[in-house]
């Protein structure tokens, strides 16, 4: 029975007509665009503004300037980032078209030394990795990571051509032969392997073992994840060996004895969390139901007589009829209202957690001023590290609660508990307090 069905599958699939050849070397999306104009056109739109109540906020191509300054919208961010590059410049994300430009413009790069590791997620970098790695991507990755950012970013090949020219591009997510989705980022290949091993799946090779539906999220998980630069090799690493819940990752860092920086006001050794969309999404009901990033952020769109994936990767709230309604037969404004209910509730709790954390900073500062010793301050500082890690983890996640509402509220509740307990510890050691 089934064999007949399988045969018919093949008939149903017609090969793409290609007007130009695209290869592993083709990092220029314009070239791919000649074969697949619909995807390319929508990809180009990632340079347009995409503001929603909480999302996007990119200013767009019309204005070559930077996106909005998060540090001004949420002043408490400057407090928790005290003494770290993020306190100098931390802005709203915007479309993929800006990925490379925004990285070059940020004061975090202009005023602070950064390694080549930064390039893993902001540029179409396979040619660079192959060149530096003598044809081997993994080796190139390892050699580029510790280079100074400017050096890596401006490397030229033998023909004197820049190796880094584009932000995330077609070849980073697609096999140029089959166009099948694929993962190209070394840190993800290693990270997902460690995670699967922890979950009992040995020797997981993502490009060999993942299903198509999984790949519709994994290609995003290449970059929308928490990371750190491991050791002096500055290896971009995803800390998933214990799992991807906030507590699992914290346990990983404790075991590694890792610290991002020493807090400028309190002297506590603290961690920086970055955009853990992939980790948080896994805690939510949608992931549980097999709903992929691309289902919502790259919904299919009808173009004439063809159905294609919308490569204008952006907030689904700008695209509800396609992003949500196929699964939720509910009016558009009602769907947006549901999201807003979740996000407003989340935002309110986020602010409360920020207040608790800032109170903790004040308390430690006061204790220090009154002459508390490092030994006396140790318990309070340890709790600051825990509280701040959780607050930052949630604040850095970009869905304002939507990807996993209950889980993120739980994390904030724990942050509040840690912050207030830290405050009690600080008060306890404050002389004449």
């Amino acid at each position, binding site marked *: *029975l*089934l064999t*007949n*069905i399988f045969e*018919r*599958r093949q008939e*149903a*699939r*017609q*090969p*793409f007509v290609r007007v130009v050849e695209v290869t592993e070397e083709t990092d220029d999306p314009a070239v791919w665009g000649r074969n697949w104009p*619909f995807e390319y056109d929508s990809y180009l739109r990632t340079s347009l503004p995409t503001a929603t109540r909480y999302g996007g906020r990119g200013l767009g191509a019309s204005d070559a300037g930077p996106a909005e300054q998060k540090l001004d919208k949420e002043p408490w961010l400057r407090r928790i980032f005290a003494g770290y590059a993020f306190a100098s410049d931390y802005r709203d994300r915007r479309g993929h078209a800006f990925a490379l430009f925004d990285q070059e413009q940020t004061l975090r790069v202009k005023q602070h030394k950064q390694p080549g590791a930064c390039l893993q997620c902001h540029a179409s970098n396979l040619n660079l990795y192959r060149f530096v790695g003598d044809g081997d991507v993994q080796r190139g990755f390892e050699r580029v990571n510790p280079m100074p950012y400017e050096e890596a970013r401006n490397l030229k090949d033998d023909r004197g051509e820049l190796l880094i020219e584009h932000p995330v591009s077609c070849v980073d997510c*697609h096999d140029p032969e*089959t*166009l*099948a*989705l694929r993962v190209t980022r070394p840190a993800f290949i290693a990270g997902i392997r460690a995670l699967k091993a922890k979950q009992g799946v040995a020797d997981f090779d993502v*490009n*060999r*073992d*993942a*299903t*198509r*539906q*999984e*790949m519709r999220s994994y290609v995003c998980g290449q970059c929308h994840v928490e990371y750190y630069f491991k050791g002096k090799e500055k290896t971009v690493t995803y800390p998933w060996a214990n799992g991807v819940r906030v507590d699992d990752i914290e346990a990983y860092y404790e075991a590694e004895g890792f610290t991002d920086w020493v807090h400028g006001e309190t002297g506590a050794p603290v961690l920086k969390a970055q955009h853990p969309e992939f980790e948080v999404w896994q805690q939510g009901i949608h992931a549980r139901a*097999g709903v992929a990033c691309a*289902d919502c952020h790259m919904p*299919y769109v009808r173009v004439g*007589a*063809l*159905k*294609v*994936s919308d490569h204008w990767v952006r907030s689904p709230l700008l695209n509800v009829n396609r992003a949500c*309604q*196929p*699964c939720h*037969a509910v009016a558009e404004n009602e769907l947006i209202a549901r999201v807003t209910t979740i996000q407003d509730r989340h935002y309110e709790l986020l602010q409360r957690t920020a207040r608790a954390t800032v109170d903790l900073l004040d308390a430690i500062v006061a204790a220090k001023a009154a002459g508390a010793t490092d030994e006396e301050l140790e318990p309070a500082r340890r709790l600051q590290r825990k509280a701040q890690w959780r607050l930052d983890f949630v604040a850095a996640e970009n869905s304002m609660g939507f990807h996993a509402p209950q889980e993120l509220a739980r994390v904030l509740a724990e942050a509040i508990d840690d912050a207030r307990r830290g405050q009690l510890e600080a008060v306890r050691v404050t002389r004449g307090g």
Partner: protein
Amino acid sequence: MKPPVLAALLACLLGIPAGVGAFTFVYAKGFSYLSSDPNACRNCHVMNEQFDGWLKSGHRHTATCVDCHLPHEGLEKWLAKADHGFRHSMAFTLQNFKEPIEITPHDRELVRVNCVRCHASFVQAVVAPSHARGAELDCMHCHAGAGHGAGG
């Protein structure tokens, strides 16, 4: 399905009475399966829900039950009809099936193939990229309502 059963069913389908089993099958409108008229499916009240859903669906004018639920060429089609006719009549008679009724993986795959069969030109681009495992794009993942729900 075991060969002897299969033979018996083919016999029924050719209209040769083969004992009470066959008689029951006929009485229970098992022969509905020989027709492509949705009302035939509705002969069993347990199909009413799906029938009503279909009436509300965008497909009511464009696809009948068998268009989606049965294969479309040759012997395979008849085997499937026999398979359905037998399992469902039996289940209906014995009332031993689980509710809500759930489509079997095999039947679900039959449906998916039919989606692509009708919509081939429209979806050619999205089904094109081949993939190592779980390669086929699952239409029902997003269009679960197709054939039975509003907007689908």
